[in-house]
């Protein structure tokens, strides 16, 4: 199980905001990828309609998930692959360890997989004396640095070339050089040895195809191909929702995934893998294992309000446009999934109360929905989570997060229900504000929770007389 640090959202956010290197990196990512993706969508021949189509394809798949998984699994098994259904993180990691031990695995190469982060796989393998090598350049960098990913697609985006140069000099012993091609070449050289010597390769699964019985992996670097071709054992991990029904469904989805993730027409490499090497083939793993993971997804599936979040294809387009993510970065979310997708799914996975800051700590601007290639209504679900925190919810085990706030809004609802009471409240407010410090007619310090506002900005005081009072007087003039 991945470490959960969602309780430190505010604290980590504040830290991130004060970090000029991180701020620069985040601006860079968003300035480049946000608009580029929007343009890539615009240039699609089908336009907006393609995203709606993709939404329907994914919705269809979720609605028939039982049949699709059974179809997928049977076909893989017919080709000699092994499939394991894992209830939760512990179940999945035990299985991996079991297979590793059975095959006397000493060294593993790994393609980037958010699911393996979610289940905390690396730590378990390492604790059992199995060397784990992350091979995606970004993941490799953060593995060397002992950190966690800060972005779903570009895990080391928070690191400057300077920091990478220092890291590589320190850990790989190469002469100091900040040039990305040189640094990449160093990683290429080092990891090549690992690819060729590893006994097991681990990958995720981007979107399986039920009809043909294949998982798919997507990358630009070629590391996933290396990890899933050269070692004798390949184990792929798949969130149970990551499947489409038909082969042609990939048409819309791969085109959108590539645009959503990196404003590309198509990712460099896509592999359809449906089983181990056949007897007459010269290469490929001798064993292919697919681990299908629940780990909280079936609970989400069972809730029609949140089922839509399972349509996500983990492209990170929402991260690239989110104003909150753009300031606080991935680490603030305290779990592998960050940004708007993280804000919805992490509470549903780890506990809504525990992760309450994730679903309350953004302005709900809606840019995420606009950017989502599968047209997921993220704001709707964020509002839904907030409603659960406001009232509590037995089904999801949510307790009311702030009883004082509830009372405050109850009082508020009494006030706005009746104009006379409202006017009285305004009058009271006008009196109280006389006590507050002002500059140039604006209040500079507010009391209680409202001082969050005035820590950085002034606020206009209540008008001497409300518009409606003035209007009433005007209408009553002879």
């Amino acid at each position, binding site marked *: 199980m991945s470490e959960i640090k969602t309780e430190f959202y505010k604290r980590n956010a504040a830290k991130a905001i004060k970090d000029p290197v991180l701020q620069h990196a985040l601006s860079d990512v968003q300035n480049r990828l946000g608009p580029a993706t929007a343009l890539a969508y615009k240039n699609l021949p089908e336009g907006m309609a393609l995203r709606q189509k993709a939404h329907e394809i994914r919705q269809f798949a979720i609605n028939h998930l*039982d049949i699709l998984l059974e179809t997928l699994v049977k076909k893989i098994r017919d080709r000699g692959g092994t499939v394991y259904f894992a209830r939760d993180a512990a179940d999945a990691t035990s*299985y991996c360890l079991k297979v590793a031990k059975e095959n006397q695995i000493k060294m593993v190469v790994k393609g980037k997989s958010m699911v393996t982060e979610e289940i905390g796989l690396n730590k378990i393998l390492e604790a059992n004396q199995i060397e784990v090598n992350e091979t995606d350049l970004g993941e490799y960098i953060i593995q060397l640095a002992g950190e966690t990913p800060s972005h779903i697609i570009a895990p080391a985006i928070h*690191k400057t070339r300077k920091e990478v140069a220092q890291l590589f000099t320190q850990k790989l012993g190469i002469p100091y050089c900040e040039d990305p091609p040189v640094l990449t070449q160093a990683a290429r050289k080092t990891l090549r040895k690992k690819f060729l010597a590893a006994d097991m390769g681990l990958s995720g699964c981007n979107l399986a195809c039920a009809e043909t019985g294949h998982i798919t992996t997507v990358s630009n670097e070629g590391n996933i191909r290396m990890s899933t*071709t050269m070692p004798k054992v390949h184990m792929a991990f798949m969130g149970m929702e990551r499947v489409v029904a038909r082969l042609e469904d990939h048409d819309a989805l791969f085109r959108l995934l590539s645009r959503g993730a990196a404003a590309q027409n198509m990712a*460099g*490499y896509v592999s359809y893998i449906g089983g181990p090497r056949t007897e007459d083939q010269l*290469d490929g793993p001798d064993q292919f294992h697919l681990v299908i993971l629940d780990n909280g997804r079936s609970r989400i599936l069972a809730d029609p309000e949140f089922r839509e979040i399972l349509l996500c294809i983990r492209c990170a387009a929402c991260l690239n446009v989110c104003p909150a993510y753009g300031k606080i970065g991935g680490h603030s979310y305290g779990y592998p999934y960050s940004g708007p997708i993280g804000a919805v799914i992490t509470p549903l996975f780890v506990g809504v109360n525990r992760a309450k800051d994730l679903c309350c700590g953004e302005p709900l601007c809606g840019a995420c929905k606009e950017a989502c290639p599968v047209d997921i209504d993220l704001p709707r679900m964020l509002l839904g989570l907030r409603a659960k925190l406001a009232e509590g919810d037995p089904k999801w085990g949510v307790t009311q997060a702030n009883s004082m706030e509830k009372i405050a809004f109850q009082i508020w609802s009494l006030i706005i229900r009746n104009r006379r009471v409202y006017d009285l409240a305004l009058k009271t407010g006008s009196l109280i504000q006389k006590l507050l410090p002002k500059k140039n007619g604006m209040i500079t310090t507010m009391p209680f929770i409202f001082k969050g506002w005035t820590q950085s900005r002034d606020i206009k005081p209540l008008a001497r007389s409300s518009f409606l009072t003035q209007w009433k007087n005007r209408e009553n003039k002879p």
Partner: protein
Amino acid sequence: MTGPITQEINDAQQHEFIMTIQKALGKSSGPALPELFGTAPNDLDTRLNAYINKSQPDRMALLDLFIEQAQLLNLAVRPVENVSRAGLAIQEFIEQTQPEWGTQKSVIAWHHPLIEQLNLGKNLADDITLFTTRSSSAPDSKERAQIRSQLINSYIGISAADFCVAQSATLVLRTRPHQPRAVSLVPSIHVAVITLDQIIENLTELYFRLKWDPEEQKLGLTNCMTFISGPSKTGDIELVMVHGAHGPRQMIVYVITG
């Protein structure tokens, strides 16, 4: 987890998993398979015919599209009139390029009819070794180890392809005997040879043909089908695009137009 995972335990676990999903969806069983995966369209033959029998101008237009898209990916596309010209061009290329690691120049090529026609072995310089991945019908571990070693030591891998999708400059490679996946992956340079008629327009056409063309249905996708769109790359360091990550750092496609 203790003890072996027997078939019974595995089945029971799968059953429970699927039941959980069905309960979550509020259903007990779904519709019959054909409705889920689509039935053959009425105009199947017409569409297939149009896809397979493109006019020469259409084919040339697709070649142009392929070249245009390839440029964005640092993918070199070299049209050649016939197979012997291709052979000469590739031979020249091999002689002019240097290996990334070390000085020994070895090249590994698929055992494939089109590649055989290139006649590469005939005129290559003496200091260059050419390996071909022809194998026995059920290659044992020794044979596979030898190929693996040849692969690792080769700096150019030569393959053919099943299709070339012009819209995204994507080569589609399925896996067959005598045609290891690693040839297009492990060597520093990937050289692919295709014919003009292999170039198709887009993914829609690709998936349609794979799914509905009886010839393609016979083979299926195979256990590993790979899409390759240019040489490997990464932008993980400050989003600066670098060509040459873990897969080949250079890729050239020769298109035989005659």
